[in-house]
C-alpha cells in the first residue's frame, strides 16, 4: 500500500477529475461575474469572494473542450496553486475520496482531448472508476495565458 491522498472529485462532461484537497480553498455555487475586457477567452471574469476579488477560469475553455451553458450543478472550485488564487468553473463537484498513490499511473499522451502536461496522473478507484488528477501548476501557467490552445477532437 502506498500513501493515501485526499482528492476533491469534479466532472467535466463524462470525465471525472481530481484535485488535491490541500489546494482547494472552497467550492462555491455559480454567481454573477464581472467580465474583464481584453482578458483571455477562458477567463470568464472576476467574482467577489467575501471581500477578495478572484479571477474565474472556465476549465472547459482552458482545456479547449466544448463549452456548455452552466447548470444548477455547476460549481466554482476556488484553488490556490503556484502563488495564484483562482476559481475553476466545473460541471459538478460532489465527492471527496482517498486515492492510493500506488494506483496512480502516468497519463498517456492524450486523454479526452486534454494535453498530458496538464495532468499529474490517472488514478484507479475501486474496480472501474478512473480519475484524472490535475496538474494545477501547469493549468495556471501564466505564460500560456496569451496563446489559447485548441484541439481537434
Amino acid at each position, binding site marked *: 500500500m502506498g500513501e493515501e491522498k485526499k482528492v476533491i472529485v469534479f466532472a467535466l462532461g463524462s470525465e471525472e477529475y481530481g484535485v488535491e484537497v490541500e489546494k482547494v480553498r472552497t467550492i462555491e455555487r455559480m454567481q454573477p461575474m*464581472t467580465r474583464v*475586457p481584453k482578458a483571455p477567452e477562458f477567463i470568464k471574469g472576476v467574482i467577489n469572494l467575501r471581500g477578495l*476579488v478572484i479571477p474565474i477560469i472556465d476549465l472547459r475553455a482552458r482545456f479547449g473542450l466544448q463549452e456548455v451553458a452552466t447548470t444548477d450543478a455547476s460549481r466554482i472550485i476556488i484553488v490556490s496553486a503556484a502563488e495564484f488564487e483562482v476559481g475553476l468553473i466545473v460541471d459538478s463537484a460532489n465527492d471527496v475520496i482517498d486515492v492510493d498513490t500506488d494506483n496512480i499511473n502516468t497519463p498517456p499522451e492524450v486523454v479526452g482531448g486534454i494535453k498530458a502536461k496538464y495532468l499529474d496522473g490517472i488514478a484507479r478507484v475501486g474496480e472501474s472508476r478512473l480519475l484524472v488528477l490535475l496538474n494545477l501548476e501547469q493549468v495556471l501557467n501564466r505564460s500560456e495565458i496569451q496563446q489559447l490552445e485548441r484541439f481537434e477532437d
Partner: protein
Amino acid sequence: MELNQYLSMFIDESKEHLQSLNENLLNLESSPKDVSIVHNIFRSAHTLKGMSATMGFEDIASLTHEMENVLDLVRNVKIEMDPYIFDCIFKSLDALETMVEDIIQGGTGSADVAPIVTALGSIVTGEYKKAQPAAAAVAVKEPAKGIEVDEFQYSILQQSIDSGFLVFYIEVSVNENCVLKAARAYMVFDAMERMGEIVKSTPSVQDIEQEKFDRSFSLYFISKVDQATLEKEILNVSEIASAVIIAVDTESLAELSRPVTEVETARKEIAAAVAATAVTAEIVAPKVAEVAAPAAKPAAGGGAPVASRTIRVDIERLDTLMNLFSELLIDRVRLEQLASEVRRNDLTETVEHMSRVSSDLQNIVLKLRMVPVDSVFNRFPRMIRDLAKSLDKKVDLVITGAETELDRTVIDEIGDPLVHLLRNAVDHGIESISDRIAAGKPEHGTIQLRAFHSGNHVFIEIEEDGRGIYRDKVLKTALKNGLVTQEQAAKLTDLEVYNLLFASGFSTAEKISDISGRGVGLDVVKTKIQMLGGHVQVDSKPGFGSKFSVQLPLTLSIISAMLVRLGSEKYAIPLSSIVETSSIQKSQIRNIQGSKMIDYRKSVIPLVSVSSLFDVPDFNEDAEDETEIVVVRKGDKQVALMVDEFIGQQEIVLKTLGKYLTGTFAISGATILGDGQVALIIDPNALIK
C-alpha cells in the same frame, strides 16, 4: 525552544534598536560630551545583545558585546569618543544591519565580523592609539602590540633585564566557550606567580577577577624560567586556547614603551583642545538648545524611556480587518435599501444608527494604517552623513514634519525614491566646499526635508541650497537626446525645462556630467511615484539651489472615483485623473484622419469609445445622439472617454485583481460595489499615448 514565532518581533525590535543606535550616535557626534546619549546607546546595544543571544544569533550577540565594551569605557569616562571610535561603531552598526537583513531574508545572520571585532578590541585595550602614530612612523614590529606601562613599571622591567632576569610579554586567550573565564585566568595567574612576578596586566587583575574581559588578557612577566616551560605551564591550565609569549629585551622594551609617552602628550593635547571647544560650546550652547528644544522628540532626549502605549499589529491582520470592514459597508448599503423599501420607523432608525457607527469605524480602520513618515525619514541623517563624508562635503540635513502620517502601503514604497532624490541632492546639488566658498556661500550645504499635509495629499519636499539647475544645459541634453525639438524648446517655460529631467530618455545621456549629473535615474523616481498615484516636480534657481516636490495620496486603499455605466457593466474612473465630465452632441464629433476628435476648450482632443475598446456586449455610443463624456488627463495630454451614463462619485476600496491577472489592458484594479458586484477600475493612463 520554538523561536520562529518570535522572529518577526525580533526583527522589528532589532531594526528599531539599530535605528535608535544610529540616531543617538549621530547626536553624540554633534555633542560628544553628552554622557546621557552614551547611556542611551549602551541600553540599546545591551538589549540588542540580549535579544540576539536568546534567539541564537551568536555573531550579532558577540559583535554587540564588543561594542558594549567600548561604550562601557566611554560611559565611565575611561576613554573619549574620537573619529576613529565613531567610525568603528558606525561600521559595527552597518555590519549588524547586514546581519539582521540576512535574518530577514531567511539566513542565519552569521557574518565574518572579525576585523571589526579586532578594531573594537583595540579600542578597549587602547592599542589603536599607538597603532595610528606608529604606523605613520615605522612599520610596527609584530611584538609591539604591547600594553601600556607607567614609568615605575618601565623602570622595574628595565632593571630586571639589566640584572639578568627574563622579561616576557604574554598574551593569553581562553577558549571561546569557556564557562568560567575568571577562574581560568586566576589559575593562569596562580601558575605564573609560582614562577616569577607579574608586573602589569591588561585588563587589570580586578577586572579579570570580575570577568570583565573578553577572551584574552596580556601581561608583563619577570621570571627566571625559560619560555618553553612557561608556555607549558600556562597551557597546562585547561580551557586555555593559546598563549603568545614574547621575550622582551631592552630594545624592544623601549619600543613598547615609546608610544606610551606619545600617547600621554597626545592626551594632554586632546584635553587642551577639548577644554577649548568646551568654552566655545558653552557660549553657543544656549542658542542651540533654544532652537533644538521644540524639535527634539521627548524620547530622544535621554532619561527614562517613555512607556510604550502602542502595540504591534501584523499588517496582514489589518488587511483582513479592512476586507471584513468593506463587506460590512456593502451590507450596510443593502440594509439601507431594504429599510427604505420596508418603511418601518424603528428599522430605519436602527439602520441609520448603524450607518453612523460604521462610518466612524471606517475612519478608525483607515487611521490604523497610518504611519508617520518618520519611519522612513529616520534613516536619512545617517545616509547623508556617510554620503557627505565620502564626497568630502559638508551637509546639514534639516527634517521637518516627520510626524506627518501616510498609509502604510505608501510608506513602504516611498523610501527608495526619496533616497534617490536625497543622494542626488548631496551628490549633484550641493557643491564641493571650495566651490561653495568661491560662490560666497557657507561651507555647510543645507538640505531641507519637509513633509506636510495639504488636502487629500501629503507633500514631501527636498530642497537644497546648492548650485541649482541651468536651463540651457538641460535643454542642450534634451535636444541631443531628441526629447524636444528646437521649436518646442524655445517655447518651454523654465519649470517645463526642469521637469525634462524626469524624462526617461534623459538618464541615458552619455555625458551626465555635462549638466552636473542631474537626471540620473530620475525617470525611475518618477515612475515609482506615479505608480503610487503621486506626482513629482522640480523647481530651481540657478546658483541658489533646487527643490524637488513629491505629492502623494494619503492612502492607496481608498480613492475617490466616478462610477460610470456602459450598458450592463459598471466601471470606476479615479477622480484624480478626471478633468471634467460633460456631454456632447453627435454633431460635435469630428473625424480627423480616421480618428474621432472633439473641440474641447479651444483645443482638439481625441475621443475614445470605451465600449468598443472593451468590447462591451450591450452598449454602443453610435446609437446615441447625445453622449456623456469624461475628460481625463495624463500630464498635459487630455482625452475624452465616452460612457453610457454617470452613476456618481463614490469613495471606493481598492482591490487588486490578483497575481493571475497582472498586466490587464487599461484596468488598474477592482472594487466591490454596494450590491456585492465587482467593478473594474479604468486606468486612464493606459488610454493616453
